[in-house]
């Protein structure tokens, strides 16, 4: 991915984390991790972060369950999830395509999604690949549902979906995504063609704002440095601007 696009995604996600108290980032998530570090840099230490897979960035001392226990305690304000498939109701599938269990294509599994999606107030879905294969009308397997019936304990849920083409916000009442901006160089027709689900949108959606020079300097500087322990190659790319 070109460095402008990477910086754009980092900037976009960082904007969604402003003012929060604590953000956790799962393993193998360099762009969300960079976004969280950028938000912290701008917020003077807030949000606090827990970076999974990082020694220096993790402050967990109660084993693998601590992240989930913290989320259950209400101490995690935002988290990131992806999906082999994401559907128009914000349900995600991390298990496989085709009929379960004899999947025609198997993926790793649900990880903590079936829990965290319910208890973390602001879950940001992030999937760069934006095609009818990834953004589908209905997922083949629900690792975690986007919404729940009344009565189901659910303080958390989907907040936004960030892809390589655009930004959607999720409207819980409508149980639908609404396109809020198109990344520079992408248009609505292209997004419609590449999205397997219906979504709401204005006729002329704005362009996702590109990061200011000061932000780029932060990404190349302190953000890249902090990221280097966990994602050395990705961080090197950031700092070189490629």
């Amino acid at each position: 991915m070109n460095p402008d696009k990477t910086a754009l995604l980092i900037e976009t996600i960082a904007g969604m984390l402003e003012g929060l108290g604590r953000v956790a980032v799962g393993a193998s998530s360099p762009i969300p991790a960079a976004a969280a570090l950028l938000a912290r840099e701008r917020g003077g230490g807030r949000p606090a972060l827990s970076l999974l897979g990082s020694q220096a960035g993790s402050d967990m001392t109660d084993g693998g369950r601590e992240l989930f226990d913290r989320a259950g305690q209400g101490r995690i304000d935002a988290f990131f999830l992806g999906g082999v498939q994401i559907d128009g109701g914000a349900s995600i599938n991390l298990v496989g395509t085709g009929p379960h269990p004899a999947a025609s294509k198997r993926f790793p599994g649900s990880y903590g999604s079936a829990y965290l999606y319910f208890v973390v107030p602001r879950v940001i879905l992030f999937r760069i690949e934006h095609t009818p294969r990834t953004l589908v009308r209905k997922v083949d397997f629900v690792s975690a549902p986007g919404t729940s019936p009344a009565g189901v304990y659910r303080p958390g849920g989907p907040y936004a979906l960030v892809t390589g083409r655009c930004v959607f916000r999720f409207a819980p009442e409508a149980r639908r995504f609404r396109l809020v901006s198109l990344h520079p160089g992408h248009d609505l027709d292209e997004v419609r063609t590449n999205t397997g689900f219906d979504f709401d949108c204005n006729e002329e959606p704005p362009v996702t704002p590109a990061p200011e020079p000061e932000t780029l300097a932060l990404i190349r500087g302190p953000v890249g440095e902090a990221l280097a322990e966990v994602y050395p190659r990705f961080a090197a790319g950031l700092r070189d601007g490629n």
Partner: protein
Amino acid sequence: MTETLSLDRLAGRVADGAVLALPPDYSFVPMAAVRALVRRPVRNLNLLTVPQAGIAADLLIGASCVATIETAAVSLGELGNAPRFTAAVEGGRLAIRESTCPAIHAALQAGEKGVPFMPLRGLIGSDLVAARPDWRVIDNPLADGGDPIVVLPALRPDVALFHAPFADEQGNVWLGARRELVTMAHAARETLVTVEEVRACDLLADDALAAGTLPALYVTALAEAPEGAWPLGLPGRYEADRDHLAEYARLAASEEGFAEYCAEHVDEDVTGLCAAE
């Protein structure tokens, strides 16, 4: 009393058909012992990954040691999907009990506490619930109705197996902050541990070390296995061998390549420890 065994003898303690709990790749993975299990070879394991797994599970699955797996995910992380796991599931050769990380942690805590089940929030509406007939959705008995919650049966693995930086001569094992291994050992009926080294000290007598120590009571048997997590790293001791892991990912993509990998790296005990017994 904790016994000290050779690596192959330790592997011999895992019965065919056992429910075997293994740590995740970010924890203390007993790769030397896993290779010893493949060499034996163990058969019909029911793997429980706590809560996810990587190359350890993939190797056992590729070598036809595994009948079922209960897991939140199996993956090689940045190196992509776990190829032998993926092929086995797609080929219908591996029965999978789908789970999610906090469910495995909570069910092991139920096993640790000797209670038959543990409740967990979330889950409702996930296809995991349908895929797990042993999970039940009940009405929260402390609410006035209308508050559904999932209860998970306790997990008590037959064997927990992991690698640790060191143990003392009494069989106390230092695990630091890797407390998922503590819970695993508490919940398991037997615990087998490989260590980088056995030290002449008493871990429980030192305040600072005691805080990260699994008492010998839970440790059925120990084996020394220097670099026993290789090609994974041992946090704080040595780094993962990224080139080797990439080679594994490349070769294990095909059945033939996997056989080649095993012939080179598994079938011979590269540590030479069993000969030393």
